[in-house]
């Protein structure tokens, strides 16, 4: 079985969100990590490899420094790594990004493509289904569990209040939830091998069946009108020196005043 896993390098928004003095996000000061949902997708692919045997190719689109996450993926156990990088691809929205990645994947043999549900920088969850659409593949989003059955997969697909068990014929695309599994650590040998591993680098000319007018900032239908730090409403009244009785009384009075009770 041949599996392609799409991964993204993202700033770690969870721990240290850093701001510049002018209030904008300081990306340089933030840790760059492999997107958590993508890492779960990679882990799912590696488990299929352990269980059934598979060749796992990781693919990312980004700046040259995104090589870091490809090396991490190789050290975890991926077999091949591809970096798609080109100036003309910069500033892409989800349409242009998915067009680019689909153009890269058209060069590959695959039975299964796995992407993360969403990346923690954009949180859109759009690129996975859009890649499937460009490639004409069935897509199953929000995947919880994957079982192989010949040319078919049985997949649990999560919804808010239920899950569906779906049977899908490969080739297909799944989007993985970080709740899917606990990703493995890199092994010392894996890290050692990854340093020497070849990473394939593709640019615009390597993308198959893709029009220039659908790439990069210029090829993105959505345009940013304004981006800013979140303006929050000011703090209200903060009371420090009341004992429990006083505090409870003060809150009760507020609730009475507002006719809540």
């Amino acid at each position, binding site marked *: 079985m041949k599996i392609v896993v799409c991964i993204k390098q993202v700033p770690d928004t969870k721990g240290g969100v850093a701001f510049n003095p002018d209030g904008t996000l300081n990306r340089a000061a933030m840790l760059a990590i492999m997107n958590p949902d993508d890492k779960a997708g990679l882990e799912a692919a590696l488990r299929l490899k352990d269980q059934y045997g598979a060749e796992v190719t990781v693919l990312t689109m980004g700046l040259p420094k995104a090589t870091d996450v490809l090396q991490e993926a190789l050290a975890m156990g991926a077999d091949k790594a591809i970096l798609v990088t080109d100036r003309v691809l910069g500033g892409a929205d*989800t349409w242009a990004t998915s067009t680019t990645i689909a153009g890269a994947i058209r060069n590959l043999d695959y039975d299964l493509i796995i992407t993360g549900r969403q990346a923690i920088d954009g*949180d*859109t969850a*759009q690129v996975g*289904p859009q890649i499937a659409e460009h490639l004409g593949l069935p897509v199953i989003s929000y995947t919880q569990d994957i079982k192989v059955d010949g040319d078919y997969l049985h997949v649990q697909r999560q919804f808010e209040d239920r899950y569906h068990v779906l*049977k899908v014929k490969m080739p297909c695309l799944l989007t993985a939830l970080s709740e899917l599994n606990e990703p493995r650590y890199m092994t010392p040998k894996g890290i050692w091998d990854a340093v020497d591993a070849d990473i394939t680098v593709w640019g615009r000319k390597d993308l198959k069946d893709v029009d220039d007018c659908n790439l990069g900032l210029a090829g993105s239908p959505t345009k940013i009108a304004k981006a800013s730090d*979140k303006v929050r409403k000011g*703090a209200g009244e903060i*009371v420090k020196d009341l004992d429990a009785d006083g505090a409870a009384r003060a809150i009760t009075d507020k609730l009475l005043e507002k006719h809540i009770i």
Partner: protein
Amino acid sequence: MNLEEYKGVFVFAQQVDNELGNIAFELLGKARELAQPLNTQVTAVLVGYKVKNLADQLAEYGADRVIVVDDPELEVYRTEPYAHALAAVINEYKPEIMLVGATAIGRDLGPTVSARVATGLTADCTKLDIGDFPLQPKEGVETKHNQLLMTRPAFGGNTIATIACPNNRPQMATVRPGVMQKIDPISGAKAEVIEFNPGFTPNNRYVEVEEVVRKVSDVVDIQNAKILVSGGRGVGSPENFQILRDLAKAVGGEVSCSRAVVDSGWMPKDMQVGQTGKTVRPQVYFAIGISGAIQHVAGMEESDYIIAINKDEDAPIFDVADYGIVGDLNKVVPKLTQMINEAKANK
């Protein structure tokens, strides 16, 4: 693409088990507002099997017109026949704006359909307006009027971006549940109902539904609560959530929680407020022992009145609270419950 051909504000009226979700009504409420400056109609797109009877309900919540796509293939949600249905409606009726809920269905259907009809899609919007793009006149750039301006949080709620889709139609957005306001239903309202079936021929993209497993849960939907008593890691233990339940009972509210509480296994995920949980906007939100990480605040800051109780006076939750008490929640909360009960008894 002749942009002038595209008219009207459309919403995808999500139904599951032949029941419309709140999100359908919330989208209709917003669509009505957007339709006003555009001087146009609101159309609900209802997709399913034997769902036509839901059209009246959509009319009561603000739809001028309902396009019904009814077919046995559409009985249970699957990406392909649903994407085919919605894309066919878009190609046939050419909406200017297409809104979809940012639900587990909409966040799958929206991207698939937007790619199929070759337009942009803005995810998880929390604000929608009609205005100019660019926002301010720019030399050498044509100002386009009456554009859909879609605002959404990014970077885990650390930044917000306003996005437009000036050169493609429809302008598509998925919208976070619980953010937009539905209208008071107009009883007896009727909409023009159009039945439309583009034909469904199964292909490689049709998956087979082998099983539907509903989560057995008697939990309430925290998005519907008027008052939420929300606890964080500071509550200390799952057992100690009892004092929050007591307070919730006294004020007639429900209990919710932060992500840390779910990660610790103290409460189910359905109760989680925040960026990766639910967005809520109750009349009163009690944040108890919640530090106020930005991802949490993103899910509750639209609440009408926020009361925070935390022993750490530097906790960021105090930056968004309308009323903050620096103190020990173990002492304050039981006392508060007692006083509220007394106050109610004295009325």
